């Protein structure tokens, strides 16, 4: 008799506990009606691994270095380029791929889980440093980003010739039908336009926040996985989406990229952010090798590499290897 009651009590307590937790999750309060909800995360394409270190070269005997990369394909290519170039010079390199957004990857850098990663100057400033006044030129972006890095024990190596900013893209038909040529044109569509972007887009100045502040846009935000952008545009799940200016899909002329006159998306050349201690410990050939790679990365080069990875489904490692070989760095 007593046992039955005791276990009933346990079950009831459990029920009350879970109901309480659920009630907390479901407790009504002022609810926002914005439809923004986060969506699919990134995949993990980048191979966690190490390119085999060459037997000789300035890197032999130096401490091992871990290269990280963020959560999209261009980053996988960049990470692989730097990693393979370093390995060819004898450095022992490990790649930690697909870590996450800038915010998360920078945290990994600070925690020492990685020694360097390729970062976009503008994003470092706005998403990580929290700067709210966007710089006026690529040079200024680089200088300010470098200053921020150095204040925190890191440094920025040379920046690449190419830049890859976020932008808003839409299907040509939709843009023409609604007279969209610039980001400012979205204001008149208000909430009727669905804007897709990575989940972090919602909380970034180089994102929804900047669109609202600088242009007065107030779209309905639909979180999307970075890789599902164009599918969502094609199927009409969103009408406008956050795209990268070096996306190979943009070369098909199916899409229109809206102009960003106030430059909320910033100047976005890539510069590897590296811990100062690591730069010192690895010797001069380290920074030299990385800078040599960066110097080769023009917009056409990165676009072709992106196309090979995103459209041809070639692996970022293979694409990086072919590029380095063609340019005598491997």
């Amino acid at each position: 008799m007593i046992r039955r009651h005791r276990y009933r009590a346990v079950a009831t307590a459990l029920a009350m506990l879970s109901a309480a937790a659920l009630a907390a999750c479901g407790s009504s309060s002022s609810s926002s009606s914005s439809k923004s909800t986060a969506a699919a995360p990134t995949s993990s394409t980048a191979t966690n691994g190490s390119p085999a270190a060459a037997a000789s070269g300035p890197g032999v005997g130096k401490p091992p270095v871990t290269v990280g990369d963020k959560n999209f394909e261009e980053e996988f290519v960049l990470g692989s380029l730097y990693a393979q170039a370093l390995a060819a010079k004898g450095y022992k390199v490990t790649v930690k791929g697909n870590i996450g957004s800038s915010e998360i990857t920078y945290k990994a850098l600070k925690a020492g889980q990685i020694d360097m990663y390729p970062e976009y100057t503008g994003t470092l400033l706005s998403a990580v440093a929290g700067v709210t006044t966007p710089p006026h030129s690529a040079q200024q972006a680089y200088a300010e980003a470098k200053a921020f890095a150095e204040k925190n024990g890191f440094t920025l190596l040379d920046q690449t010739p190419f830049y890859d900013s976020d932008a808003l893209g839409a299907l040509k038909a939709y843009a023409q039908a609604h007279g969209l040529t610039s980001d400012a044109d979205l204001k008149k569509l208000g909430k009727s336009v669905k804007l897709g972007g990575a989940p972090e887009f919602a909380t970034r100045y180089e994102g929804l926040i900047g669109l609202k502040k600088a242009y007065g846009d107030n779209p309905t935000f639909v979180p999307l996985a970075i890789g599902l952008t164009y599918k969502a545009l094609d199927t009409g799940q969103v009408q406008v989406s956050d795209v990268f200016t070096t996306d190979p899909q943009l070369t098909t002329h199916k899409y229109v990229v809206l102009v960003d006159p106030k430059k909320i998306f910033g100047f976005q050349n890539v510069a590897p952010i590296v811990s100062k201690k690591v730069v010192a410990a690895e010797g001069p050939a380290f920074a030299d090798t990385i800078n040599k790679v960066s110097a080769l990365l023009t917009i056409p080069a990165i676009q072709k590499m992106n196309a090979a990875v995103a459209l041809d489904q070639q692996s970022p490692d293979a694409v990086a290897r072919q590029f380095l070989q063609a340019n005598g760095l491997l």
Partner: protein
Amino acid sequence: MIGIAAGGPVIPNFGGGSASFACERANRLFCAGWVSRNWDTVLWPALRQHIVLTVIAVAIGFVISTALALVAYRRNWLERPVLIVTSILYTIPSLALFELLQPSFGLSRTTAEIALVSYTLLIMFRNTLTGLREVPPEVRDAATGMGMGPTQSLLRVELPLAAPAIIAGLRIATVTVISLATVAALIDNEGLGVPILTAISNEVFKTELIVAGAMAVALAIGADALLVLAQRLITPWTRAR
């Protein structure tokens, strides 16, 4: 600061040019070329990692649940608390459990394994205990009558008779873990979930998705068949039915 190599970089024709990748560009159901190019670097490592993840989880789960079942067999009062705890663990959706373990164990194989093990416990505990309990009392008496102590009786009579139920539990647990381990890729970037998630983020690249998915199903069916075979070998007397 921005230096462009004189004359610009040499841009090779990656992989032989886009004409070699017509199947991928069209995102057809199955691109054999892609599979053969990426077997060694993507698919096979994923399969290997998936097998390792599964074997570790099932092995640890088996040990824990068998130990619990043996104790509960002797001390009946243990059954209900164990059932309650393992049921709750079982009910928590995998995604939630992986995340709840993350603060304590990080983004590591440990987190994945702990979650996967907890999904095996209920099934295997219950099946093992039920299997042991269903040994007819006459058989147990006979064993005692023959002079066997409780441990001997357990090892030579009761456990072998409970084997079909135990292995049935093992089968369900194994297939379940293989299926759930695809979600574990979120946590430790390992296993067949990696190409599945990659494919999703690649405008849903069908070949990779279908091949990785099919491999997971084949692995599950294969593991199940292996265990059935093992059961027939261990308990030949059950074949005649």
